[in-house]
C-alpha cells in the first residue's frame, strides 16, 4: 500500500521544513514526467472530454454553443449515410485486413525459410510501403484506379473481357480500390512482425519434424501457427482497431466529394466537423465511434483470451 504510506508521511512532515529530501526527490520525478502529462492533458484528455460535452450542443465553430440534449445523436442515428459509413468501414476493414494478414504470414514464412537469399533487401523492400506518405500512395493508386478506359486497372480488366469500372463512384470498385491501398501499405508491417515472431521459434522443432517426415504444410500447421498465436492475436487486434479508423486513404481518393460508397466512420465525422461546420453532430458521431471501438476491443480481447489458453 504505497499510497497510504506517502499520505501518512505528508501529515507528519507538516511541522518539518517544507522540502524534505524525500519530497524533493518525488518532486523531481514528477517534473521529469510532467512534459508528457501536460501535453497529453492539453491535446488528448481535454479534447476527449470536450467532445463529450460538444456532443450535446449545437455549434458551428463561430457562434454561441447551444445545448440540445440528445438531438445530435437522434440526427445521426436517423441518417442513412451514418449507417452506410459504418457498414463501409466494416466491409473495408474485412477486405483490407483478412487477405493482408494471410499474405503477410506467407511472406514472413518465405523470408524466414533458408531458401530466400538477400533477406535484408527483401525485408526492407517489403516494409518500405509503410513509411511512404499516405497522400502520395493515394495519388498513385488514384492514377491506377481511374475511371477512364485507358486507366491501368481498367486495361488489365479488359484482358479478362470485363468492361471498364468507374472506380471513383462504383459501389464495389471504390471499396476494392481503397482496400488495396490499405493492403499494400500495411502488409509489410505485419510481415515484419510475423517474421520477428517466427525467428523466435527454435529451429530444432522444425528439424525434429523433418526427421519425422512432416511436410511443409504440416510444419506450418503444427509448429508455426500454434507458436505464433500471440503474435497473430496482436496483429489482428491492431489491424482491426486501425481499420476502424480508416481515414486518409479514402479522403485523398474521394477528394472533397465524400461519396457514400467510400465514406468511413472517421470520414463521416470529419465531414460533419470540418466541411459542414457541424461540430455538435461530429462530436456525437465521435462518441458513438468511441463506443463501437470499445465493444470491438472487448470482443477482440475475449476471443484472444480464449485462444490464448
Amino acid at each position: 500500500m504505497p499510497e497510504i504510506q506517502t499520505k501518512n508521511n505528508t501529515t507528519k512532515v507538516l511541522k518539518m521544513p517544507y522540502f524534505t529530501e524525500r519530497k524533493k526527490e518525488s518532486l523531481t520525478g514528477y517534473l521529469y514526467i510532467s512534459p508528457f502529462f501536460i501535453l497529453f492533458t492539453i491535446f488528448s484528455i481535454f479534447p476527449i472530454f470536450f467532445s463529450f460535452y460538444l456532443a450535446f450542443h449545437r455549434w458551428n465553430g463561430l457562434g454561441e454553443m447551444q445545448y440540445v440534449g440528445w438531438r445530435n445523436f437522434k440526427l445521426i442515428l436517423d441518417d442513412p449515410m451514418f449507417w452506410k459509413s459504418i457498414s463501409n468501414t466494416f466491409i473495408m476493414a474485412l477486405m483490407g485486413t483478412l487477405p493482408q494478414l494471410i499474405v503477410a504470414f506467407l511472406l514472413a514464412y518465405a523470408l524466414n525459410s533458408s531458401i530466400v537469399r538477400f533477406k535484408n533487401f527483401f525485408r526492407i523492400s517489403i516494409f518500405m510501403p509503410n513509411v511512404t506518405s499516405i497522400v502520395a500512395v493515394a495519388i498513385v493508386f488514384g492514377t491506377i484506379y481511374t475511371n477512364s478506359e485507358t486507366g491501368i486497372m481498367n486495361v488489365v480488366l479488359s484482358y479478362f473481357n470485363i468492361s471498364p469500372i468507374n472506380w471513383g463512384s462504383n459501389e464495389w470498385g471504390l471499396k476494392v480500390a481503397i482496400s488495396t491501398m490499405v493492403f499494400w501499405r500495411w502488409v509489410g508491417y505485419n510481415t515484419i512482425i510475423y517474421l520477428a515472431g517466427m525467428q523466435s521459434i527454435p529451429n530444432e522443432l522444425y528439424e525434429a519434424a523433418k526427421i519425422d517426415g512432416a511436410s511443409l504444410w504440416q510444419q506450418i500447421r503444427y509448429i508455426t501457427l500454434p507458436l505464433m498465436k500471440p503474435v497473430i492475436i496482436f496483429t489482428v487486434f491492431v489491424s482491426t482497431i486501425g481499420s476502424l479508423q480508416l481515414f486518409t486513404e479514402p479522403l485523398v481518393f474521394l477528394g472533397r466529394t465524400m461519396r457514400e460508397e467510400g465514406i468511413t466512420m472517421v470520414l463521416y465525422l470529419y465531414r460533419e466537423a470540418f466541411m459542414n461546420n457541424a461540430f455538435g453532430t461530429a462530436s456525437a458521431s465521435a462518441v458513438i465511434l468511441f463506443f463501437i471501438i470499445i465493444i470491438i476491443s472487448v470482443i477482440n480481447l475475449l476471443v484472444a483470451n480464449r485462444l490464448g489458453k
Partner: protein
Amino acid sequence: MFAKKSLYSILLIFILLVAGCSSKEKTNSESDSDSDSDGNIELVVWTFGSTGYEKFLDEYKKIKPNVTIRFQNADLADHHNNLFTAISAGSGAPDIAMIEAGYIDQYREAEDKFENLYDLGAKDIQSNYLDWTWANAESADKSFLFGIPTDIGPTVMYYRTDVFEEAGLPTDPEEVHALTSTWDDFRKVANQVKEKTGKPMTDNVNLIYYSIRDQSPETYFNREDELIIDNSPYIKNAYDYSIQLINDGVVGKISMWTPEWGTAMNDGSFGVMLAPSWMQNVIKGNAPDAAGKWSITHLPEGAGNWGGSYLGIPSQTKHADEAYAFVSWLLSPENQLKSFTEEGLFPSTPSVYSNPAFTNFSDEYFSGVNTAKLFSEAAEQVKSAYTGPGYAIANTEIGTALENVNTEGKDPEKEWKDALDRITRQLERR
C-alpha cells in the same frame, strides 16, 4: 482513499487546463502588441495560391515606412482551415486574411469576428469595384462588409479548334458564339461534335451544370437562408439541362482535377470546357502541347462567375486602420492592373478594362484571342446571386447526384430527391 486520489487527479487536470488556457491568452496579447515605441507596426497577411502580392512590398514601404508587411502563404484548403481554426479559437488570426469566394459564406453568421470595412471607409471606394462581386462580400442586409474583392472568375467557353474543325464547325470565336448563342443551340452543336468526331462535347457534367448555375440570379438559398431549390426554377433547370446532355451521350466522364483530365485537355479528347478565367492557367499548365489549339469565346446566354477572393480584416487585429489602408491600396485599380499583367489575377475593378495596357493583352496560346477584352465583357454580364452559409453542402450533393447519373446511369429524379434529402439533413445540424 480512492475517492481522494481521484479528486486530486481531477483537481490536477483542472489546474493544468486553466494553466493551458491562461498561458495561451498571454502569448496572444504579447504577439499582438507588436508596435514598438517608434510607432513601427507589423501586419501579418495570410494568402493562398500565387498572388504575387510580395512584389508590392517595396513600393508600400516608400508610402508607409513605419509599416512592415509579412506574408504567409499556404495552399487553398490548408489556408482556409487554419483561418477558420484561428478565428473560431479567438486567437492566432492574421491582421489581413485572404478568403476565397466559396469560403466567405461560413463567416456570414460571425460578423463579430471581422472588422466591418464600411466602418473603416470602404463606402468611398465601393464605386471602383464591380457591383456583383462587392455584393457577395456583404452581409444579407448590406450593412456589413467582410472583404474587398481581389480578383474574379468570369466564365467563358474554352473550345478545341481542331475538334470543331473535325466536326465541320467554324473555329472563329465570333462564329462559334453565333452558333452557340443559346443553350439549345449548344446542345445541337454538342450532338454534331459527338456524331462527327465520336468525342464527347464536354469533359464532365460538373462544368455544364456550374455554368448554368452561375448564370442564375438565385441559387440554392434566399437571403433568409431558406433552401429554395424545390420551388425556384433555376437550379432545377440547370440540373435538367445537364441530364439532357447526359442522355444525349455528349458528356464525358473525366473527373476534374485528375491526371487524366489534364491529359484529355492536352490530347483534345473533348470539345469544350465551360470554365472561368482562371482556368486558362490550368489549361496552359496541363496542355503544353496544345498551344494554338484552344480558343475562347462567350458562353451561351451570358456569363457567370466562379471563384475570386476577398481580403478581410479579422477583428483580432490591433491595427485595423493600418490594415485597411494597406488593403485598399493593394487592391486599387492601378495595382490590380499590375496583378493582372504579372500574375493573371483578373481585376475586380472595371475602370481597368478600358486601360490600353489591359485591352491590348492577347494570348497566342489561345489562338491569339484578345483574352482580356473577352473576359472583361464576360465580367460585366455577371449577375450577382446570393450564396449563403449552406452553399457548399448543397453544391456538393447536387454534384454527387449528377455524377451518379452520368457515371452510374442512375435515375435522375430519384437522385434529385435523394440529394435534396441529404442537403436538408446536413443543414439542420449546423
